[in-house]
């Protein structure tokens, strides 16, 4: 088997033991390649455990900028004996296995069709360090040094990163650099050359490297959220923690040292959303962050906020469901649970970011929309974009931007005798005016409740009052269609009967799949939806194509269901392309599924149009 040869286009996977300190070393590896101007797309693959069990870090090196997961492994860094067999089996034929050769392994543990590179890491560490913890931690840096030698990664780039990392702990700088060189020197002297390599390029540009949870947290800071109530749940916990971190830096009153934010780790998700509802009712911007099981618990409050019309921002970092499901794996399977959350008839606004850049932007947008529409707004991210660092456009903020606080009646307006009907549609957009508590001594107070009421917030079980309100809520939802981020069309170079609709973290895999299909002679127009309710462009896109693939990461085609429901479209026209095994969707999967369908149709002659 000929060894794989590739420059700036390969996949390295690190198989580690949880809690061994490998995460920071692996990130160092990925970032050093970025510093050489070559895009990388890393992913943490971790089971629901804290210490001692397997964890993986997969780095796709891609000068072409394909940031989706590729699938397959060209170089396996096998540091975990527990998962050895499966890790070795995963290597592509002609690929490479890098391992700790301190203890000899029988030939049966290897494969004939791969190149095996053994390095006595434990022996080197034991010979250099006395402290067991140091032996463990520096082993990671030593293999980074060795990989740098094998893959021609610029040592200076790694040293610069280490210097940045230990800026506040200079004592740790020299030992880390020493370990790096130890690995590099050994590999240079003793290991054979391999066919994979990194070559400096200029393909990263001004892009930044950040995870979606951090970006969304920063979006909440910029968007003016002052109250965050949350309950720990993977994969959303790091969002609330990032909010705390950013607030400590950016939200402290310079004169008094006091905080312009409040973060409460609540007793559960129900209390979290309750606090957000209370804060929203009282005029502060508030959000909660959770995942699917939390959404299930929050349903009653979501219904209250919808019906009583209270601004609420929820961030759902989706994971594999139902129930505890696959808590550390990714999915887009909460769409229906969020869009139609609560008993009774409800419709909720969903924002669907594709990457950390949009996580930032849409988090701030969600806070604006919640105030404008006086309703729950969901920011739907997922584990893939939430917990993995992703190369994306720099975060942007326009200093001229003002928070949209929506229709809040002032004391002056009340004093002037302006009519206040809390649930009255006076502007024709379905959005009523509200007052905040304590606005005026004698005017504008009302009783907020989850029970039906008339346009002036008086308790009512009269049918016409109830229907007026429910119809107004629908009108308001229709107003939302013109306020949410519009879908993005990417047209094929020539007219085609085939279209595909997708959203969120599927984006980079989709972009790559379009190219792959194009290379196979299949042209595909695509539409990335960025919000629910859907603007008319979604209906028009479907109407303009003979067949539309709906690509998403869940079992039941939830986006497809929402589209069929929204426009009354014949479901037969929308072909589901569904990936839901917990791993991020790949271009290979999408191109394979669409390509197979188009080709079959051609062979069967049922498809008279050239694709």
């Amino acid at each position, binding site marked *: 088997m000929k060894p794989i040869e590739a420059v700036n286009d390969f996949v390295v996977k690190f198989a580690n033991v949880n809690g061994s300190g490998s995460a920071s070393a692996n990130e160092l590896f990925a970032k050093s390649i970025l510093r050489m101007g070559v895009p990388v797309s890393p992913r943490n693959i971790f089971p629901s455990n804290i210490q001692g069990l397997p964890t993986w870090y997969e780095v796709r090196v891609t000068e072409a900028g394909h940031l989706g997961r590729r699938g397959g492994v060209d170089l396996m860094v096998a540091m975990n004996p527990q998962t050895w067999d499966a890790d070795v089996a995963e290597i592509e034929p002609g690929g490479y296995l890098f391992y700790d050769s301190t203890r000899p392994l029988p030939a049966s543990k290897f494969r004939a069709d791969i190149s095996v590179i053994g390095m006595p890491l434990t022996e080197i560490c034991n010979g250099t360090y006395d402290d067991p913890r140091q032996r463990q931690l520096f082993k990671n840096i030593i293999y980074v040094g060795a990989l740098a030698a094998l893959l021609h990664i610029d040592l200076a780039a790694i040293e610069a990163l280490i210097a940045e990392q230990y800026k506040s702990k200079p004592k740790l700088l020299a030992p880390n650099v020493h370990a790096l060189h130890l690995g590099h020197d050994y590999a240079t002297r003793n290991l054979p050359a391999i066919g994979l390599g990194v070559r400096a390029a200029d393909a990263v540009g001004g892009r930044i490297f950040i995870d979606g949870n951090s970006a969304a947290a920063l979006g909440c800071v910029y968007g003016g959220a002052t109250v965050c109530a949350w309950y720990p749940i993977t994969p959303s916990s790091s969002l609330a923690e990032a909010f705390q971190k950013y607030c400590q830096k950016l939200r402290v009153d310079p004169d008094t040292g*006091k905080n*312009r934010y409040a973060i409460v780790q609540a007793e559960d998700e129900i*209390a979290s959303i309750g606090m957000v*509802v209370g804060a929203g009712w*009282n*005029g502060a911007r508030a959000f909660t962050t959770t995942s699917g099981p939390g959404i299930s618990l929050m349903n009653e409050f979501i219904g209250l906020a919808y019906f009583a019309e209270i601004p609420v921002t929820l961030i759902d970092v989706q994971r594999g469901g139902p129930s505890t499901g696959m808590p550390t794996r990714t999915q887009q399977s909460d769409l229906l649970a969020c869009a139609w959350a609560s008993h009774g008839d409800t419709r909720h606004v969903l924002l669907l970011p594709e990457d950390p850049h949009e996580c930032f932007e849409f988090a701030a947008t969600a806070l604006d929309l919640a105030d404008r529409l006086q309703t729950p707004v969901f920011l739907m991210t997922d584990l893939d974009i939430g917990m993995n660092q992703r190369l994306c456009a720099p975060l942007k903020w326009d*200093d001229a931007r003002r928070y949209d606080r929506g229709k809040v009646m002032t004391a002056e307006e009340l004093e002037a005798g302006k009519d206040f009907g809390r649930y009255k549609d006076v502007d024709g957009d379905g959005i009523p005016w509200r007052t905040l*508590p304590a606005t005026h001594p004698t005017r504008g107070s009302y009783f907020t409740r989850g029970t039906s009421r008339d346009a002036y917030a008086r*308790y009512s079980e009269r049918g016409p009052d109830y229907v007026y309100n429910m119809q107004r809520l629908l009108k308001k939802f229709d107003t939302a269609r013109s306020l949410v981020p519009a879908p993005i069309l990417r047209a094929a170079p020539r007219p085609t009967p085939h279209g595909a609709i997708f959203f969120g973290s599927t984006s980079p895999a989709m972009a790559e799949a379009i190219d792959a299909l194009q290379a196979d002679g299949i042209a595909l127009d695509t539409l990335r939806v960025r919000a629910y309710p859907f603007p008319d462009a979604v209906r028009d896109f479907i109407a303009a194509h003979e067949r539309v693939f709906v690509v998403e990461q869940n079992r039941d085609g939830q986006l497809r269901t929402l589209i069929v429901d929204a426009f009354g479209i014949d479901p037969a026209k929308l072909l589901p392309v569904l990936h839901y095994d917990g791993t991020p969707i790949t271009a290979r999967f999408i191109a394979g599924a669409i390509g197979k369908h188009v080709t079959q149709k051609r062979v069967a002659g049922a498809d008279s149009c050239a694709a």
Partner: protein
Amino acid sequence: MTYIAKPKLHHPTLACNAVGYTRRDYEGKVSTLCAGCGHDSISAAIIQACWELDIEPHRVAKLSGIGCSSKTPDYFLGQSHGFNTVHGRMPSVLTGANLANRSLLYLGVSGDGDSASIGLGQFAHVMRRGVDMTYIVENNGVYGLTKGQFSATADPGSVSKKGVTNTDSPLDMIGMALMLGASFVARGFSGDKRQLVPLIKAAIAHRGAAFIDVISPCVAFNNHAGSTKSYEYVREHNEAVNRLDIMPPRAEITIDYADGDTVEVEQHDGSILRLHKLHADYDAHDRVGAMNYLQAHQAKGEVVTGLLYVDPQARDLHAHLDTVDAPFNTLGERELCPGAAVLEKINGGLR
């Protein structure tokens, strides 16, 4: 209940308080509860307390859960914003509201079903956090709106109107509040307004988590022989540990009780709580002592009432979180948004 609204016309002789309001300005809609319901007496006590404290009605936010008790905020303080939330979850909504605007007074009204069963978790955690509020449980031992099922505060051996004997152990809201860190804990009886009004006034003046358990007989479903939450039973077994007067800041203090029987406590706002001891060995500053005393007397079937515990040095959630003095809902872009230049720096650190 009555369906005839009182005329809005104020009698010219109606007394005004220091902020220019008559007692009637603190009223709300006409109650829809049963005639003789203890809850209506509590509403009247709240009205009296707020009027006497010279509180501007619109500076109060009143929140409740679901149930008979939770309907009552509609029946007092009609100029205040109210929020009838979801069953058992008022504490979290009140917490969020309080975080959004620390300058208002927060009044949480709940029942024993709302707080001791479905809402037990939120009750516990709102006390732990020290949210600045007055939390009143209108405790009748029974589910009124769903027609007479036992609640979690019903005493074992208590007999329901349908003749069923309760065998479950009761939840003692007072004991829990003490254990969980509430900094003001009292029990009142809806049939004793002279005791209840000062308790509510003192709770409102307290800065921190103030809890009042008010035994409030349900005339429809829990006021019969065999009930331990009936008017008759509570009157017979009421053991008040103290009587309370509350005086505004800098008011002249006149002593009309014998020395040694009276304890004065200064609250955050400078007002004075004057406790007239009815039991010589009761110390309302001793949390552990209060718990012991309550357990011992409850075991004898007595209903201990009065101001049971107060920590005048209490700190509230805003103090714990070290938040700015300005209400969050008054902060704008200038205070909250770090701006484009800072974001550019953040971007720079992510390359």
